């Protein structure tokens, strides 16, 4: 494999990787460089996508939420959902000299690296492999220092079989972000020297780890070139293990795969228009234009992210925001359908709670859908204002008669976030008599100096825009941390300080252990009903990804939140 400029300087002829003229060569544009190929630390989509081309995940789900086997071929669970048995493929081979991929590699990676002592390998998302408990049961190891967390027990029970035991029933395990999409496994032999020395830095800097050269036949493609700020080139893997399974005999249908870094949007759009690349994201504002072009198709796909307006309910926020009726009034005062239509160009669905309407845990009969009602909003706010706040001459004023001004901080990096902020400012101003001061701020400053800072240290904010949160429609219990009330909310995911009067976090924790699916469904439907009524955030919308492809791309799946799970079978026809 060539990294950097060595390949580039190696000869005077073009490399075999040819461009857009070869219809079996997929060139996908990425707006940023992949920062890391260490599978134990990856948290970004760019790196994750690249790894996915050369290393399959454990398993996925299709558009109907059915289990899609990959490196994990099958699973079983016991009656109380505390024991999950996973069968791995027997055709998996690492690159030389590591031999077959077996359960031993998986157990080693999980128990020695992910669950390693004091997180010596600085693993990201290690929390996925533990759960909160009242008391750590016998046979389980304590995770963390306060005794409220226990690691899952992971054992090898056969050459290709692992068992994961959880300290409490965990019926949603399969669809929780634990093994679903899991790729953090490397050959035991490769990792062993670093594990013995507890050398996380060494593991991270290992050439095979950072060069993805250990992946053998475990992915549809094999990395051939990784060039900084430019591209990853990976030709088809003829030994792909998946070809041993029915329906995948010819997978992948693509001969070569290139991920090309293209930081500039206009360049990406010019390139897909010119036919120089196969795929790129299209900004919603230009989707219609590209849809109308010859040679380009636009496919919108739903996402699981809910873009919301956050309220500061901590001691340093405007205190009426702690009252549900006030928050309801604020929701009623904003025309979310207009935001979706005019700012997001229709590529989103209005949100009513932290669950999309297509989720099996969304129940129409439980969810309160606040309609846009400026007059009703104004009445409700006036009724709900208590203590020192009141209306004078149509404006909300404080006890000193001073006009109340709310500080609305938002991430300045996105045009739609800016427009949404301006629009909401006008809505609050016109419909509620509430003055809003806009405070555009860089994303990192917003999180670090406003959101995750304690009152006193934090800069002043009452409203916050530009934050999207995963709704985990397959395992919504994963949203528990958003609502958990603590003495130091700014040190948690509930940084806005929601006091959770209805015990949402506990209900979610309880639901995660509920073994009866109907009961669990009912509990979750109730939770999302309560959230829709409470409006701890103004749930604005669930955005869609707008994907642009050359017209010769023929996907084998329907648009869904799983989009791309079957890409190894997508067809590339001859371009007309």
């Amino acid at each position: 494999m060539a990294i950097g400029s060595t390949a580039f300087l190696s000869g005077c002829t073009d490399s075999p990787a040819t461009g857009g003229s070869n219809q079996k060569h997929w060139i996908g544009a990425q707006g940023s460089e992949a920062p890391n190929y260490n599978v134990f630390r990856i948290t970004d989509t760019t790196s994750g996508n690249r790894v996915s081309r050369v290393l399959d995940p454990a398993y996925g789900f299709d558009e109907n939420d059915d289990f899609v086997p990959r490196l994990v071929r099958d699973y079983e669970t016991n009656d109380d959902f505390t024991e999950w048995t996973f069968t791995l493929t027997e055709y998996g081979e690492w690159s030389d000299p590591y031999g077959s991929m077996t359960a031993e590699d998986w157990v080693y990676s999980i128990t020695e690296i992910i669950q390693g002592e004091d997180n010596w390998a600085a693993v990201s998302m290690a929390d996925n492999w533990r759960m909160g408990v009242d008391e750590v049961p016998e046979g389980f190891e304590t995770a963390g220092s306060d005794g409220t967390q226990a690691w899952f027990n992971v054992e090898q029970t056969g050459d290709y079989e692992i068992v994961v035991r959880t300290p409490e029933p965990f019926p949603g395990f399969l669809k929780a972000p634990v093994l679903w999409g899991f790729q953090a496994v490397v050959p035991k032999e490769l990792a062993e020297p670093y594990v013995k020395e507890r050398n996380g830095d060494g593991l991270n800097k290992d050439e095979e780890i950072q060069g993805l050269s250990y992946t053998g036949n475990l992915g549809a493609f094999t990395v051939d070139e990784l060039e900084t700020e430019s591209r990853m080139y990976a030709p088809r893997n003829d030994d792909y293990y998946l070809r041993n399974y029915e329906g995948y005999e010819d997978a992948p249908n693509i001969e070569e795969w290139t991920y090309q870094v293209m930081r500039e949007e206009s360049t990406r759009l010019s390139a897909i228009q010119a036919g120089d690349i196969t795929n790129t994201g299209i900004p919603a504002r230009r989707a219609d234009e590209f849809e109308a072009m010859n040679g380009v198709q636009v496919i919108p796909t739903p996402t699981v992210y809910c873009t919301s307006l956050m309220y500061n309910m901590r001691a340093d926020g405007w205190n009426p925001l702690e009252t549900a009726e006030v928050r309801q009034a604020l929701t009623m005062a904003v025309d979310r359908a207009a935001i979706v239509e005019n700012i997001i160009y229709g590529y989103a669905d209005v949100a009513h709670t932290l669950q999309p309407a297509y989720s099996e845990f969304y129940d129409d009969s439980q969810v309160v859908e606040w309609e846009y009602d400026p007059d009703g909003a104004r009445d409700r706010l006036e009724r709900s204002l208590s203590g020192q706040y009141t209306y004078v001459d149509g404006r909300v004023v404080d006890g000193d008669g001073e006009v109340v001004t709310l500080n609305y901080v938002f991430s300045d990096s996105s045009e739609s976030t800016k427009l949404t902020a301006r629009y909401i400012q006008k809505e609050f101003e016109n419909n509620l008599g509430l003055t809003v001061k806009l405070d555009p701020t860089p994303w990192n400053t917003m999180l670090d100096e406003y959101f995750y800072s304690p009152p006193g240290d934090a800069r002043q904010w009452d409203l916050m825009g530009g934050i999207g949160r995963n709704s985990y429609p397959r395992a919504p219990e994963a949203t528990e941390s958003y609502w958990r009330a603590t003495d130091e909310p700014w040190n948690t995911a509930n940084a806005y300080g929601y006091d959770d009067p209805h015990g949402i976090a506990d209900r979610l924790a309880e639901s995660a252990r509920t073994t009866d699916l109907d009961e669990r469904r009912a509990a979750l439907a109730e939770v999302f009903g309560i959230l829709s009524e409470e409006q701890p955030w103004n749930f604005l919308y669930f955005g869609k990804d707008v994907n642009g492809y050359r017209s010769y791309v023929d996907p084998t799946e329907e648009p869904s939140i799983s989009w791309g799970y079957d890409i190894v079978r997508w067809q590339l026809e001859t371009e007309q």
Partner: protein
Amino acid sequence: MKRYIAKRLAWTVVATWITVTITFLLIDFSPISAGGATFVDQQVQSGMSVNEAKELYQHQLGYGDTVWERYANFMIGLVTLDWGWSTLYNQPVIDVITSSWIYSFQYVFPATVLSVVLGFGIGLYSATHQHTREDYAATLVAFTGISLPNFWFAIMLILLFSVQFDVLPSFYTTKHALLSLGNVKQLLLPIVVLGTSAIATEMRYARAESLEYVQAEFVKTARAKGLSEGEVTLRHIFRPAMVPLITILVGDVLGLLFAGGYVLEVIFQIPGLGLVSYQAIIQQDTPLVLATVLIPVLIAILGNLIQDVCYTVLDPRIDFGDRE
């Protein structure tokens, strides 16, 4: 001269150390990067506390726990030529730099040569043919070149030659070998964009500087002695005009490489030093920032030294007090 050069080289070391230290402190005291903030946010959503997540992030960066420890690590690394590990690209800094400089060089160098030769040539011609039609035409071209924003010009050229006429690629890719037609084709547009603005700048400077000498007494004397117009222009106008032009040239090359270059590298997706160093700054990849700061600082300081030495060669009236 030797003493002068030795003193200047000693100053180079001090100036470099000051620059690198200031850069280090600026980055170290900056708020967390966008990538870091996103990482912390993700960890917190999965149940970790903010403080733990920040610690984990620092652990992954591996720079050291205290400011002093980090500073000492970086400085020792720079001196011992172990420039450390880029956290942005997860590879050795030296690898990032050695793989990226060539991409910048292959379009900056031709654009610079082109702009110097054409810019100086046209500027000189304009100066010696003041107020002629050619002079006005050259001035018009120069102002157009200076006025066109590089990013806009680049996008327009892509739309024209890639999308509309489909004769040149719309972006740069590393798949072509250095000496291949494919590589030449994809370098044409960046060279044209960079060259256009640079030619214009060089032309205006060359014209202005040369005009100072067109009517000078020693030029008149040279003409009176019967020298040909070409000899007068090159030896008596261009040579003294070169002194200030060299100053401009060093500054311009650096400017082109790290400022003008960045815009072009983003638009054409050329994985050169400009792009890499800019990304390093905004993502606070300290080892890479220090290395990429070190290079232009050294070039600038050494460039100035070379420039001063050149002055004595070009202009007999300049000396450093030890001319024999």
